[in-house]
């Protein structure tokens, strides 16, 4: 593949490129930031990137939402419903983990008066 073809392909797979970019931004936030809440925001951004990737993979050009309404024929093109069903599950699990993590952070802050990962590490060694 030459240079122009790669650019062209990146244009058609634009959603995937954005998903990967979001994923890396989230990963950077998780690794580089010290604040626990920021770390968890990064994890949520990574989750969102995965959702975007999945939903984009299920898309079909000109596809209708997979709901049988009046006026639809058997030959109608639908988008792939399975990624959407999977991602609905994923979103709920993401919300649940976020709630649990935030409650743990509240407890950590009440005990240690800080949410900084480095300071918490120092507190642990002391």
């Amino acid at each position, binding site marked *: 593949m030459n240079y122009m073809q790669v650019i062209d392909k990146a244009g058609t797979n634009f959603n995937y490129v954005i998903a990967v970019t979001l994923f890396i931004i989230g990963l950077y936030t998780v690794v580089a930031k010290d604040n626990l809440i920021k770390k968890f925001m990064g994890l949520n951004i990574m989750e969102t990137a995965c959702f975007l990737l999945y939903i984009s993979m299920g898309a079909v050009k000109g596809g209708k939402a997979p709901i*049988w309404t009046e006026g639809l024929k058997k030959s109608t093109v639908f988008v792939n419903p399975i990624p959407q069903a999977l991602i609905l*599950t994923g979103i709920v699990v993401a919300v649940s983990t976020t709630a649990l993590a935030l409650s743990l952070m509240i407890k950590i802050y009440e005990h240690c008066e800080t949410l900084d990962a480095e300071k918490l590490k120092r507190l642990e060694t002391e």
Partner: protein
Amino acid sequence: MRKVVVLCSLLICYVLLLFAVVNMPSMGDPDSITIKGPPGRGAVPRYLEKGAEECGGENIITDIILNYRGYDTNGEVTVIFTALIGVLAVLNRERKKISFSDMEQSPVKHSVIVYTIVRILLPFIFIFSLYVILFGEVGPGGGFQGGTIAAAAAIIFILVFGYSYSIGKFPTSWRINFEGIAPLTFIAMGLIGLFLGKNYLTFMFPQFSHTTNLTIARSMLMIIEIAIGVGGAFIFTSIFFAMQREDRS
């Protein structure tokens, strides 16, 4: 130093991922997606063609979530309930006799405009969430979405009117009854299949639905949807209540 190392390694990851993504089949191309599969096989065409007549819902996604992948959703409903249990184990339920001195004031400044707008909008938000829950199998929507909308309305109420006022409107004693309703209803519906001589969640399997009336499958779908909606709304409201803390400043 650390930042540089992190950035370099992430850059390498990014380039590798970009190459992987660019070489994937182009997006939205019907031929590159295995939506058709080999003739007569593959789950997606079957779901799309037979979903409405086998499970009783015009919305194929609801059919997949509650019927074809019923076990998955059963676990998922248990996951949000477990999240509530975890939050309550860590933070405790909100105290009944709380010193209102610090929490008397709501985070929103006392403003007539905000109060009035929220008062006017809340019933409509609740009605919309009810619509989303009840029409989940014929249109876009479903139990989780409607439940989250209702919970969001409750959270707006708590934020605007303050903790001490809203704890009187949503008392713990009646919130506690509805929190476990979603997994319990799901398991009860699954056990009906067991009592009828088939497997757990049998009503969700196509062969069984064919022999029974379609309305039964559909009403079971609706019962589970309503239970998930109500249970989800109460679970998220309870999590938000548990996270309320006195302002230290």
